[in-house]
């Protein structure tokens, strides 16, 4: 068992990065790895409420975020600075997350075994 942190730094729908990152997150968890997710930069937009990706021909992988607890992915971190830069608050997000500062995120990145960035 390894501790994996999957980082979402790209915004959703414009590319497949977020979708493929979520695939890997769920699969890693189902292979009994200890998975945490970090949303940073425009990647935090993945978590915004009221999205309608199918209206632009994209897959609604955002709905899958609701399944994270079923996969026992309990650590979902959002970069405080990124939220601020985009003028968002926690109430704009669709799932419960831990909004933490850069220093704490550095600590988390140090604690895990591997970090995979999408």
């Amino acid at each position, binding site marked *: 068992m390894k501790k994996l942190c999957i980082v979402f730094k790209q915004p959703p729908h414009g590319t497949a990065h977020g979708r493929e990152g979520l695939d890997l997150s769920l699969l890693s968890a189902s292979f009994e790895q200890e998975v945490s997710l970090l949303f940073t930069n425009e990647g935090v937009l993945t978590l915004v409420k009221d999205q309608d990706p199918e209206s632009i021909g994209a897959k609604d992988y955002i709905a899958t975020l609701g399944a994270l607890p079923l996969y026992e992915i309990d650590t979902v971190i959002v*970069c405080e600075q990124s939220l601020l830069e985009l003028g968002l608050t926690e109430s704009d997000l669709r799932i419960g997350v831990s909004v933490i500062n850069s220093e704490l995120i*550095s600590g988390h*990145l140090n604690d895990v*075994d591997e*970090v995979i960035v999408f």
Partner: protein
Amino acid sequence: MILHLIQSSPEQSSALKTCLRYATENDCILLSGNAVNSLLNKEWVRQLKTHKVVALQEDVHARGLTNLLKDTKLVDYDDFVSLSLKFNKVISW
């Protein structure tokens, strides 16, 4: 102790920006590919100053930047392999 790998220039992606937000003083930042171009920009050089930074020699050479970046520590692929093991993990931003 993390080796941060940056492969794209700061004009192309947010890799360097994000890495600098989370890198700590024990870490090393390895610039490869277009990322070596960031060493030409005063603002990025200023932000990189507080970190250990190395650049991939052949990417610097290929871009004709060897003379312009003569203050930068250059590494080859064998060094890159060693660094990836010396540090606890490699994060490719």
